[in-house]
Structure formats: structure tokens, C-alpha cells
């Protein structure tokens, strides 16, 4: 096994506790959400029908059925996803800074490994991407089970649209992280990976030039953002396919630039 993969594995092992706790929080909260929401709807239905002595049809026309989208947009469901997203974004910074500021300066060890230093950069990025996609895969694994639980807890007459595939687009963030078509998935995560690379480069600017580096890093990110948005200023002049193609090319170019700069900084400028 080559040194890059060993580094990836090392980073994954370092993050495994955080990752396991996120999986646990997501699973517990979401399953609890499905059960609580389903049960409270059913008991509410029977209470309303009993107290107001109305028929099932009347209840349904005034209160409506319960659908999976109602569960998926609840805090039980979105809360742990938002928490995971926030922690993983924080981890983009942590994955570098803890090697400098952790108890034992591990960055000495990493920078002195007999391998291209850019491999450290790639390994850390790969680890982040694997953790993110791992959480997504876990969510995809949970969803059908959650749908089954909903369907078993709520009588069919009270059950609205329960297919989880289309429940996902009832909230913008969910349709961003689990889009319906694969090319949108590629775009979402292509942009995501680029963003991770840009932040990594900004971090390395800071680690190389300290205060000045923060400014350069922020300017670099703004520059990349403007470059990516530039085709939209000329949107009228471009056909949709051209716009899409141009954005794809820019995405690759910016990512490549980010790698080239990071490689230079790691080899020549970074300071322990």
C-alpha cells in the first residue's frame, strides 16, 4: 500500500471517534423523530376525532395526511444533519491546525515523511471527502428503514406521500447534499471538493505567512469565487450548454491552481 493511502487511513483513524459519534447522533435523533412524529400524529388524530366527534374523512380534510416530508423537515431530522455539516466544516480547519497546535507537534512528523508533501494535502482532503460521503451513505442507508417505520406506525388511510426519494427535495439543503440525479451529485460534490481545496490553500497561506497569509488566503478565495461567477455576468451571451461547460472547466482550473499553490507552499514556504 502506498504512502498516500496510508496517510488517508491514518487521518480516517484519527477522525473515527468524531465520525462514530456523528453516526450515532444522526441515527438516534432521526429514528426518534420518525417514531415521535408518527405516534403524535396518530394520537392527535384519534383525540380530535373523539373529542370533536368527527369522521376520519372530516379529520383528513381539515388536518391532512402525514407524509415523509413532514418528518424529514423536522428538527429531529435536520438538526443532526446541520450539526454534522457544521462539525465537518470546522474539521477542515482542525485537520491542519491540530497538527501545529496539538500537544505534540505532529506536523514535524508529517512534513518529514519520505513522500511528496502534497500527499499530506491530498490525504487530508480525501479523508474529509470520505467522511462527508460516509455520512451521506449512512443517511441513504437509514432512509428506507425510516420510511418503513413511518408506514408501519401510521394506518394507510392517514398516510400521505411516503416515498423518501421525493421527500428529499422538500428542503433545499437536502436536495443539495442528496440530489436526485447523478450529474447534480457530481456538481454538488465537485464544488464541495473545490471549496475544501480552497480552504486548505488558505490555511497553508496562513501557516506560511501568518497574518499576511490570512489576507492572501481570503483574497485567493474571493478571486476564485469571482472567477467562478464571471460567466454568469455574460450569461446572456452564452448558450446554456456553453455556460455549463465553461463552469466545469473553471471548476477544474481553480482546483488545479489551488493544488499547484498548495504544493509550492508546502514545499517552500510552510513554517513549523
Amino acid at each position, binding site marked *: 500500500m502506498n504512502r498516500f493511502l496510508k496517510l488517508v487511513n491514518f487521518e480516517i*483513524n484519527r477522525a473515527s471517534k468524531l465520525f462514530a459519534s456523528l453516526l450515532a447522533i444522526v441515527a438516534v435523533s432521526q429514528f426518534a423523530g420518525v417514531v415521535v412524529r408518527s405516534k403524535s400524529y396518530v394520537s392527535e388524530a384519534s383525540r380530535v376525532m373523539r373529542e370533536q366527534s368527527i369522521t376520519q374523512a372530516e379529520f383528513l380534510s381539515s388536518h*391532512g395526511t402525514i407524509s415523509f*416530508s413532514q418528518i424529514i423537515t423536522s428538527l429531529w431530522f435536520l438538526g443532526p444533519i446541520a450539526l454534522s455539516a457544521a462539525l465537518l466544516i470546522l474539521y477542515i480547519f482542525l485537520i491542519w491546525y491540530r497538527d501545529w497546535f496539538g500537544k505534540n507537534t505532529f506536523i514535524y512528523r508529517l512534513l518529514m515523511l519520505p513522500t511528496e508533501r502534497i500527499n499530506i494535502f491530498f490525504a487530508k482532503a480525501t479523508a474529509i471527502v470520505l467522511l462527508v*460521503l*460516509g455520512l451521506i451513505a449512512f443517511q441513504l442507508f437509514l432512509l428506507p428503514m425510516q420510511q418503513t417505520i413511518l408506514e408501519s406506525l401510521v394506518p394507510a388511510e392517514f398516510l400521505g406521500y411516503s416515498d423518501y426519494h*421525493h421527500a428529499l427535495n422538500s428542503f433545499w439543503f437536502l436536495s443539495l447534499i442528496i440530489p*436526485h440525479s*447523478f450529474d447534480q451529485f457530481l456538481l454538488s460534490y465537485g464544488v464541495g471538493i473545490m471549496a475544501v481545496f480552497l480552504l486548505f490553500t488558505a490555511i497553508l497561506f496562513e501557516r506560511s505567512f501568518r497574518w499576511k497569509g490570512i489576507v492572501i488566503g481570503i483574497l485567493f478565495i474571493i478571486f476564485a469565487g469571482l472567477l467562478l461567477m464571471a460567466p454568469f455576468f455574460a450569461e446572456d451571451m452564452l448558450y446554456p450548454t456553453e455556460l455549463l461547460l465553461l463552469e466545469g472547466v473553471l471548476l477544474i482550473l481553480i482546483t488545479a491552481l489551488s493544488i499547484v499553490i498548495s504544493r509550492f507552499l508546502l514545499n517552500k514556504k510552510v513554517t513549523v
Partner: protein
Amino acid sequence: MKRYWKTIVITLAVLLGIGTFYIRNAVSASSLPQFTFVKESGDDSEIMPIVLAGSFDRSGHFGSSEGLQIVDNEIQYSSEQSLIEQFTEGYRGEYGLIDLQEKYRSFMRGKWGSASFYEDKDFLLYATIKEEGSSEKKDFSFSISLLDKENEERTDIKIEIPMKRSIIYMGEVDVQMVGRMLKVVAEHAPYTNSDFEDKEVHVYTIDLSSKKIIADDLIFYSENAGESFINYQRLAQNNIRNPNKYIVYEKYSVQEGTDSYGNKTMEKRASELIAYNLETGKQQTIQTGRLNNPDYSGYESFYNDSAIYVIERNAEKLKIETYDIHRKKLMKTFEFPVLSSKNTEDTKVIIKNSRIYLYSADESYPRQTKQPPAQLIIADLMTGKTVYKGKLVAKKGTEMEGILRTHYMEIK
């Protein structure tokens, strides 16, 4: 290998989990209702040019409704489209320009808006009004591009529009050619101090060889005296980029009043159609009593060449009267049944290709979970004969409670 199990497990989970999800998404049938037109009588090929855009709102569903398009009698939900499809299809919703874009890719670059085009067998012409400057002081100019189809020669012209008064907005509504003269019909919204929105309709005559504006004719302008208003409304044109001798406006007067609650009301009093001849600059009035019906609104009527199709509807039926501008008389009257709905917007009418396309549905709120299927009638404008009649229903097994709403119809 033991030390690598975490990475291996995560990697496999990612590949399998995400892979299966997308493979199944790609191959499995949609779980949303598959609406298609089902024929009751007539010829199936008649429905092919219809493009419908709308949304489906699942009952009991939280969050946004599902955007959809029906093209070639095939439904496509936008949430199930790939990124490339979303990006290229239905982009700006102008099917009317797709054929031009394919044929003249370079000329058409950066040119949008069906009303800004004129096409005959020799030329393709594009004219638009460009706006520059702040809201206080705006400068307007014509940006004109002419394509000689035969030798593919292209001419671009920019002409400043001299301003006599301050104008908030100015936009072209039709572009025509009469000989070598370009006619641009533009609507102005001059700057006023009152609440009343002024409207002026100008016809600019531009000499393409000398690149000069040689005439600016003010043909209609809104008027306001006390509580009565006179306003103008352009009728829809069947094929706006085709050569057309006339432009047709509805002139209507409105009386402002107060209802029993003290709210302001606008009551339509009288209305007539005016056809302006672009060749001669002469106006013709077509009187029709139907137009004075307060429920009538001019934007639903159409004109084409020398014919005006006046559309009037009530809860159960839609009446269409064909007037001939030259002969100044009513030629034909046809009636078609529509699905009754509280909202008149639920019925969509388009006249094109010597057909009338009549889509009627009941999309009224509050949510009616058992929505009656929408009805489509296509009839020949010459004979009044129905060439297609059908209903828009979900395919068997995909029916679902919810409401289908259409907000756009276009005929390719």
C-alpha cells in the same frame, strides 16, 4: 489489513450506498403521477406541439411542489431531470427561439425575446431597445442586427433614440419590416407625478441603409380625465416574428368608483379594437359589442395577418369570433366547452398554426384532492371542427391525491 478496516468500510459504504441510490434513481420508475393526454376523439399527432409547464402539489406534502413540463405528451418532473436537462431544456422557457438558435447559432448569440425578432424568406432581423444610465436620466438606443439569409451577411447597427421627455421604461413589443424600412413598435412608460400609469405606443421607422430614425409616430396614448381612464392593450400575436401588416390594440375605458366597503373599484365601460396599418400608418376601428363585457380582457385575444380572433368566455364555454380587418366584418363564430373553474386563468388559449388550442382545468384552491382531469381541445380555425379532444390524466397506477397546476402553455 486489520488496521485499515475503518477506511475500507467507509469506502465500501460510500461506493455501494451512493452507487445503489443513483443506479436505482436512474432505472426505477418515477413515484410521481405520470400525466399524459388521453384522446377521446381526433388525431393524436395534433397534441405534439404543445408545451405545458406547471407543478404538482402532493396532498399532505410539506415543502415545495414538484415542477413539471409536458413536451411531446411526455411528462418530465424537474426534480427527476439531470442537471444538463434542467439547464438546457425549458431554459428561459422560449421554445419559439430554439429553431432559430439551431439554425443561426452565432447570430442568435445573446439575443432573447420572441417579440424582438422578424423573419421573412430573405432576412432575419433582431431589434431591441437598450437602456443606459441611472433612473433619473436614462438614455435609450436601438440595437439592431440584420442577417441576410442568402449570403449570411450580418449587419449590426446602434442608433440613439432622441428623448423629448423623461421616460421610466421603454420596450419593443413587435418588430416588422416594410420594404427596406424597419418598424419597431415600442411601449413607453413616461415619467409622471400621478399614480396613474401612463402608456404611449410609438412606431419608429428606421431606414436601414442610412441607419437613421426617420419617423417616430405616437399612435396611442393613455388618457385620464377625473375618474375615467382610457387605456390600450395589445392583443397577442400568433407568430410574432412572421411578417405582419397590422398591429392590433384594444382601446378600453375604465371608470373609477367606490364599492359599498369604501374600496376603489375599476369598472370597464367600453372597448373597441384598433388595427394600425404599418404600411400606410392608418388606423381602423373594429366595433364589437362583446368587448364591452366587463369580464373580457384583451390579452386573451389574438391577431394574425389580417384576422383578429376575439375570445370571450364564461363558466361553461369559450366563444371565438374571427374578424377580417380588410373587410371590416365578422367572419365566423365558434363555441367550445370549457371545464368550469372559479379562476379564469385556469383556462389557457393559444391560436397558432391555424389551430386553436384550448386547455381548461380546475386548479382552484382550497386543495381539492380529487381534482377533475384537465381538458384539451384543438380545433381548426377555418372550419371550427374539433381535431382533437382529450383529457390530461395520470397513467394507471401512478394516480395520487394532489393538485396539478399549469402556469404556462406554448405551442412549438
